[in-house]
């Protein structure tokens, strides 16, 4: 289903997975140490690609995964993340918002109460609820150290002798906005019960990873602004000594996440851009124009799946289209099978070897 050969101890690997809606990034930092950024599920069977891939490689997930990062609580980024964290017993969990245990508990409990009796579509924070239950049931991976780490601007989340993971966002202002948003979601007697809202994109966590001489940039869904938030805040405060050679493009390549200074200050001229599409909404991302823009800035561009797949009209879909189409337009499935883009490079080696697994594809290959 996915690639099946494990990386060597001196090899850095970046894999992205995506079914067309949702994404997950997996990084091997060397010596069988892995981190996971976000999670998604493959359709129609609903498996979690990171787990299937690591199982296929024979990786001991319980010990080898050191960090599980939720860049923000959108379903296309955290679907299934609790199942990864459940198996990754040696991992710390990274939350994008710095909140107290009471605030986190309030978020989870209110979301659950507001969603009682609703189907599987609801529950903006159901993955957080499962994470809370896992946290409550096991000790921290390192005695005396909290198992939950908060992302924030310029914060080192975890490091070792040969690697370090640093969050570049959210900024203090974005964090403040998130806490205000959280306060507005709390239940008040007599108020109508509304579903809890999702995290704003300015809250998304972007990550800078150093492994040996390799530099990697993961954009999450971070947008360019607003002022004092997003990439504007990142480029104003962060200037690496060496640019990133791999850039996981933020927010599915949307124009709103593009910031020229990111390309000039944080990313190398011969970088490899990794894209994950988002097929939701009226304008799926990335558009052909978005891909052109990114291809003009990177030496190679790969995507985990096509933006607009050729949908197979099987009997079930035809029937659903016939019925829902009485009122709706453009009826489609939510996602499809997961593709994989995998880039590997040994310590000291120039460049990356990139492979793609259907339905992943290359938009531009390095010359």
């Amino acid at each position, binding site marked *: 289903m996915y690639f099946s050969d494990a990386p060597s101890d001196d090899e850095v690997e970046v894999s992205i997975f995506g079914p067309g809606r949702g994404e997950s990034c997996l990084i091997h930092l060397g010596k069988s140490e892995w981190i996971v950024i976000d999670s998604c599920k493959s*359709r*129609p069977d609903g498996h979690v690609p990171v787990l299937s891939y690591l199982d296929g490689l024979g990786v001991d997930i319980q010990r080898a995964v050191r960090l599980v990062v939720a860049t923000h609580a959108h379903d296309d980024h955290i679907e299934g993340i609790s199942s990864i964290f459940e198996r990754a017993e040696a991992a710390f969990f990274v939350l994008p918002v710095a909140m*107290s*245990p*009471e605030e*986190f*508990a*309030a978020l*989870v*409990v*209110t979301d659950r*109460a*507001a969603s*009682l*009796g*609703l*189907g*599987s*579509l*609801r529950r*903006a924070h159901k993955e957080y609820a499962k994470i*809370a239950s896992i*946290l*409550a049931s096991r*000790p*921290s991976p390192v005695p005396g150290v*909290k*198992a*939950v780490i908060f992302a924030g601007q310029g914060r080192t989340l975890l490091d070792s002798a040969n690697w370090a993971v640093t969050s570049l966002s959210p900024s203090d202002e974005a964090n403040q906005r998130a806490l205000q948003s959280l306060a507005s979601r709390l*239940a*008040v*007697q*007599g*108020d*109508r*019960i*509304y*579903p*809890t*809202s*999702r995290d704003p994109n300015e809250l998304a966590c972007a990550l800078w990873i150093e492994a040996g001489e390799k530099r990697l940039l993961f954009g999450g869904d971070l947008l360019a602004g607003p002022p004092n938030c997003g990439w504007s805040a990142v480029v104003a405060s962060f200037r690496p000594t060496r640019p990133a050679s791999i850039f996981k493009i933020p927010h599915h390549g949307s124009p709103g996440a593009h910031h020229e200074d990111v390309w000039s200050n944080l990313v190398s001229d011969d970088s490899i851009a990794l894209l994950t599409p988002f*097929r*939701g*909404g*009226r304008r799926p991302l990335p558009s052909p124009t978005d891909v052109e823009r990114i291809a003009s800035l990177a030496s190679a561009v790969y995507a985990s799946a096509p933006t607009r797949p050729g949908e197979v009209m099987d009997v*079930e879909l035809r*029937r*659903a289209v016939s*019925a*829902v*189409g*009485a*009122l*709706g*337009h*453009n*009826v*489609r*499935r*939510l996602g499809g099978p997961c593709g994989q883009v995998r880039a590997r490079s040994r310590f000291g080696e120039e460049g990356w070897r990139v492979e793609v697994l259907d339905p992943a594809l290359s938009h531009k290959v390095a010359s």
Partner: protein
Amino acid sequence: MNTGTGSTLQSGNPTTPGSTLSSERPTFSTPLTGSHVRVRRETDLVSHPNVLSESTRDVDHATEATSVKRRLASGPISSEPTEPYLIDGLEKWEGIVERIYSKQFSARLIRTLGGDSEELEAEFDSSLVASSDRDLYTEGAIFYLTVRTVVNNRGNRHRTASVAFRRSGRWTSADIDKIESDIDALTRAIADVF
């Protein structure tokens, strides 16, 4: 109580001889009749405990699914047909508003009756949102899409579709007490690792 008014549309089945409506894209028809409200009351009750306590009838989907081919004494459930009819098919989706545009909204849907529960996505015209549901129309709002196939005594088949937004209850003091108690318990459970 989940008796939100909604919007209803009906269309003929172009493949059925004697179909009375056009096979063109169906048109949206308002206002609703009282019978629409009655139908919606049956189909869109919410299982939130606050709401159930006020509801007149809970829905047993399995029971309803097996009894849809029942002959009803009199119509209409919509302006057509006006004669005795059979409900020959019933499909239901639960939807969540994902994004609101100027004249449309996109939504995720999961079928709750009448077929696979695979998730779908679609766009809907915002004009489908009844004026009485406007206060509920927000990103994250839940709605119910019901599609019925109806056969009148002359064998003509009609398809009717309706959208109704979930009208949830209000937080009660008992809700708040339970939430606060749950927050305290969860906070204690995770305090050591958080």
